[in-house]
């Protein structure tokens, strides 16, 4: 259970990071707290949108989904089931790949690093790790 609790807490942290960046993109909070200025460079670049959707909004929705799933997976009926952990690992895995792509853009295309994006990268990687650990503790038949 500790893994799913960790996933929930990490998802909540990721949700707030994404919400902060999305509110910035909406022009609701002024500047970003980012010492290097790299955050604004990244957030205002043409690559801050994917298929017309703000990357920060994708983060908000993604972390909200992971939070809901982690909390559901903690409920007595699902606590011993394997599939929530599998789903969590798959979704977080997609998040890790997406973050890897965004980090590549920051390093080699935009040439600026957003600290908040790096923080989000660590969060999604941590969620992926704990969901794998959760999977490892559960037997394949789902009747732990």
């Amino acid at each position, binding site marked *: *259970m500790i893994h799913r609790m960790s996933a929930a807490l990490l998802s*909540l942290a990721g949700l707030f990071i994404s919400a902060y960046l999305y509110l*910035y993109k909406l*022009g*609701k909070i*002024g500047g970003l707290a980012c010492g290097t200025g790299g955050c604004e460079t990244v957030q*205002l670049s043409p690559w801050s949108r994917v298929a017309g959707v703000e990357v920060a909004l994708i983060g908000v929705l993604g972390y909200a989904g992971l939070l809901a799933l982690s909390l559901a997976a903690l409920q007595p009926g699902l606590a011993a089931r394997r599939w929530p952990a599998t789903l969590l690992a798959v979704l977080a895995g997609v998040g890790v790949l997406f973050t890897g792509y965004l980090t590549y853009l920051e390093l080699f295309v935009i040439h600026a690093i957003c600290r908040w994006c790096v923080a989000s990268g660590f969060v999604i990687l941590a969620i992926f790790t704990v969901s794998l650990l959760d999977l490892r503790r559960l037997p394949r038949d789902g009747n732990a």
Partner: protein
Amino acid sequence: MAATQAGMKRFYSVLAVIAVAGLGLLGYLLTRPATVSIPANVIVQASDTSGFKGYVKGSATAPVEITEYADYQCPFCQTFATLQMPTIEERLINTGRLRWRYRDFPLQQHPFARLAAHSAACADEQGKYWDQHRRIYEGQAEWSAAGNAAPILRKYAGTAGVDLARYDACMQAGKYAGRIQADQNSGVALGVSSTPTLLANGRLYQGRFDSDAITKLVDSLARHPTK
């Protein structure tokens, strides 16, 4: 292994503390007082733009014109203005091959962008526009991070040789708020959504530019002056 009731209680307590702290912080950021003193989204009057078609640099007979829509607080614009523009000026503008037109496009997420644009406009009425323009971009890291950018911009105006009494009156009146808004409206009408955006020969170019890319673009447009 099921978690104990006490363990779950502790978990929900920690979750609630983080949620309340996060929501509180976002709430504070959303409600803190804005520092912008130049009004945005003003109704543009005809008198705001009479005779004004952007800040122009270069020969009136240059075969190519590029209009730049930019935001003083945008990091991309700053890099472009300080690193690429000197070369563009030397190679293209000063040699009569290119005319550059600068228009304001202050993005709403930049609390001081409109103030900076207005500061440059007030310097313009004393013939010091490009001096102030350069100083604002060069000092972006300083005023952008400040709690109040106005005194820093005023300091730049003073260094540029602007009469500060007239400057202060201009700033306090928000004299050019309509003109800045008109610039922004013209960009929106063209489809500008980010900065810097260049308009050349009826086409918009967005993203990162360097002086070599601009030189190639100018060469190409000079060879094919279709519009």
